[in-house]
């Protein structure tokens, strides 16, 4: 408890609680996880809002992320400037979205961003190829990959413009009920 007071002010904690899906304890736990990533960088006193970023190399080495094929994308999407370096806020944001409590729409929105490799607001064939290669470790032949992309676009592209917009994606996610439980990182 004493620690808690030292790290955050009461208002800060409350704000974090209201802005994430975490309880105070979880926030503290996440903070210590964050702090553990770079103990020499992250101060133990956040009351003055220090502007600290933990580099992607450290974020990506967390056991929760280190074997995730999308870890780089996740870090990029949740970091402010897209380079994967994260502030504590970004860090909390990331795990809040990935938590069990986050609603489907929120999750779908960020999942879309993660799969949108070239950041053009659409999941195009190129993005899909990236996804598939990441998922299958390049075990499929190029022909198979392009066939898959074609099929996916076929299935999910509501307005037939040859790429998936966020709406298409959300619509598809609605039909995949497992998404809620699989787009989830336990901490």
């Amino acid at each position, binding site marked *: 408890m004493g620690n808690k007071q030292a790290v955050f002010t009461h208002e800060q904690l409350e704000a974090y*609680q*209201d802005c*994430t899906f975490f*309880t105070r304890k*979880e926030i503290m736990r996440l903070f210590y996880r964050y702090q553990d990533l770079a103990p020499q960088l992250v101060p133990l006193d956040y009351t*003055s809002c*220090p*502007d600290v*970023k933990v580099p992607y190399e450290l974020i990506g080495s967390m*056991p929760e992320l*280190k*074997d*995730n*094929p999308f870890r780089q994308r996740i870090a990029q999407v949740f970091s*402010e*400037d*897209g380079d994967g370096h994260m502030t504590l*806020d*970004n860090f909390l*944001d990331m795990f*809040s979205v990935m938590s069990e409590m986050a*609603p489907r*729409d929120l999750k779908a*929105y960020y*999942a879309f*961003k993660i799969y949108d490799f*070239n*950041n053009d*607001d*659409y999941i195009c064939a190129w993005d*899909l190829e990236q*996804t*598939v290669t990441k*998922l*299958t*470790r390049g075990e*499929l032949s190029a022909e*198979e990959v392009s*066939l*898959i992309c074609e*099929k*996916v676009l076929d*299935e999910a592209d*509501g*307005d037939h413009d040859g790429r998936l917009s*966020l*709406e298409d*994606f959300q619509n*598809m*996610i609605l*039909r*995949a*009920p*497992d998404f*809620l*439980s*699989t787009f*989830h*990182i*336990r901490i």
Partner: protein
Amino acid sequence: MSAYRNSAYEEDPDYPDYSESLNHTQGYLKTSGPLNNSDDPSTRSNPYPAESRTSPDYLESLAEPDYPGSRSNPDYPGTRSHPYSSGTDYPKPLAEPEYIGSQRNPYQPGSSGEPDYSQFQQNPDFPGSKDRGNYTGSRINPDYLDSLGEPDYPGAQENLNSSGPTSNHPGYRRNPEQASPRVKAYIDSLGEPDYPGAESQSNHPHFFGEPDYPGAEDYRNSTDFWGEPDYPGAENGRDYGSSEDPEMARQMLSRTSSIQPSFHHEGVSPLGILGREDVDYPESIEMKSVGMANPYPGAPGNGYVNPAYVGDDGLGPAYGDPPLSGHDWLSSPQGQKLIESLIPMTSRDRIKAIRNQPRTMEEKRNLRKMVDREKSKQSRRILELNCCAQCLNSISLAYRRFKNNLSELLDSISLWQKTLKVIGGKFGTSVLSYFNFLRWLLKFNIFSFIVTFSFIIIPQLTVTQENHLQFTGLEFLTGAGYFTNTVMYYGFYTNSTIRHGNSGASYNMQLAYIFTIGGCLVVCFFSLLFSMARYFRNNFINPHIYSRGIAKLIFCWDFTVTHESAVKLKQKNLSTEVRENLSEIRQENVKLTFNQRFIRFSAHVAAWVVSSGVAIACCAAVYYLAENNLQFLANHSNPGAVLLLPFVVSCINLVVPRFYSMFRLVERYEMPRHEVYTLLIRNIFLKISIIGILCYYWLNIVALNSEECWETLIGQEIYRLLLMDFLFSLADSLLGEFLRRIIGMRLIKSLGLQEFDIARNVLELIYAQTLVWIGTFFCPLLPFIQMITLFIMFYVKNISLMMNFQPPSKAWRASQMMTFFIFLLFFPSFTGVLCTLAITIWRLKPSADCGPFRGLHFFIESIYSWIDTLNKRPSYLWVVWIYQNLIGSVHFFFILTLIVLIITYLYWQITEGRKIMIRLLHEQIINEGKDKMFLIDKLIKLQGMEKKANPTLFTLERRDLEPWGPLHVRQHDAARDLRFRRSFQEDNPKA
């Protein structure tokens, strides 16, 4: 709803700006007074020319005829926006007397920073508006500088002088940003160089393509937001309503749209600006974070930031940062709407709405602050007299804190968090769902135990007599002997009224017993019902649309899996599955011959016949065994003889499901899911019919024939069944699965490791839970026993899983299966239990000399006599009334049923209507997509023409871009575009 989207909109533009830009601006403000003056003379002149030269936009804008139009328009914002966007505007604003103050400043500020200062100075008059003005000014400044590029430096330097480090940052960043949007535009959609407008395009591809400019509208909205920050300053100062902004933007857009050729340029001015601004904000934010954190870890950045925050906070009504941000928001209609919609919400809903915003923490925090402040302001204004409201407020706050603490407490209790994480990490969600189900059942049983323990067992313990039976140890298996005379069984409970001392407080054991069990079942019923409904809502939203689901395979990567080898295995499995799927698609057209189909069909029929035959045979065996059991027991004095029946039943439960799953060798299903469902149906049929036969035996043979305390006999039987089942699955996990691993790994290597059979394991859990529910009436301690067995099972299964199994190779529809499991638990299992207990209570005669109901003809008579006694006491007449008119009345239930039927019918009709609506909307989406493609084609052609006509612009822009084209900036830009878009989408359905 509006709140939701609003927030989205607002947050993006505003927050970033506030946090950072505000700080910057404040810096400006402080310095502004003297600095400005000094700077003004020299810098102004410089910036203008520089800008015009350097930035292609300006040139364009100048060249464009549209400007006049915009000027002529009475809407200042519109004109202003132009000026902002295009450097060329300067002359205009100057010419116009009104603008000069506000408009010029922003523009010029960009260029020289002087105008800003003037603005700032003006601002002092209008506290709220000033802030904005300043901000806008400051923002603009950096932007302009940036956009102008190096040549502008004179201006930039001025800024630097005045603002110091902050201005520099924004400027620098801005450049890359500006560059990025354009670049994107080129790259992305249209690829056209001319597009100053391209920026807007890049941001929102729709925009161009759509005829009505829905896209444009998006822009508008967005633009409003974005734009507002700029405008607000000026406008507010000018008395312009905030609401004008959107309109202006719209007008602008419509204008632009109408004028096709010029469109790009014009578009550039409003949109481009907006885009830039957008860019700027995020970037500026980044700048702050990056720049401040890294380059100037502590000093300048922090200095800036802190003062701003502090100052604001201190100001209170004047509001420093948050207010500013708030103002911007408020000024934008969406912002206002959002905040308005948030304010009346309960704090819970509000927090939920804020949490659900897809924004960064910073933005959410500011939104929260804003709303809170607004709320407190409002309540102060409106409810000042009403101290009651304040009381309520503080109470609600305290309640919230309390709830947070409580949830924390519950959270710390939550069992096995770490173990579950490991399981999920190694085996994925599907296996995890089994353990979650187990945990869920455990919670159920803990609840039942607490209730029965506190309302039945504790009172009974206070009056308990001494137990004379001998304890041998075999009782643990048989449940008989010593345990017969303990609180474990029905027969031990007293039928008297418990009364301690002379206080007069009495406790009627009969009523306590029936009400506790009844209450327990009712709670179970509702929690089952609600969790079932929740699962259905989440997982069967759109069940009628089923596609082959490659998309689902691709996008439903299991993020819970974190173990390295598991990830590799999963990737391998996924690729095989995808490959299988593809080959299926390729072969889809290959029809089976009649012969093949006939063989397949007959295999199914044969499998069904065999499986039901086996099930029926098992039931018959159990029935005859049970029937002869009493005689058998009479002939054998060995106390272990009672174990025969449970042993046989457990054997059946162990062997037959495995036999069923061997059918898979013969049967071929097109979809693996069908196989799982068939297997489940066969198994549940077997298990439920066995339980049904046993119930029949208990209620019709044991209850009618035996003279002893038959309720206790049934309780013992259920205890034995449960225990035997537990022992069997324990042995199965420890021995069977272990042996299977040895065989798979050492002897027959082709078998490999086995996969965890989720369906069978879940069915075992359901079976045990059914027994527990039936048995609770006869053996109130059963939930406690089940609690212990579940607890042990969790660890045993966990260990066995880690040692003997490999992750499932097929993508498993875990969540839908979970729904199905809970449904099974509800439908045959729980409803069956209710029927059994209803028959027991209404139809059977309690045994004459044991248990709380001894001496009655039926169990339910205890309720009747209770109502009779209440009838004599006038103060309890309402209970009697409720009983007679509601619970005991046929008419009431008749009417209730009718009403429920009508409501169900209505909802069904509504659902049908919605389905039609969904179909229509879907068609509409497809059509709009076609429209869009058509228009984009057209636009590309037009652009091509324009490019030929006007190649110089392109080269200019290019040059501008190149020095600043770092990739990540572009990405970043895109990210915010996405947000932007998203907010619009949220907006749209609601609108």
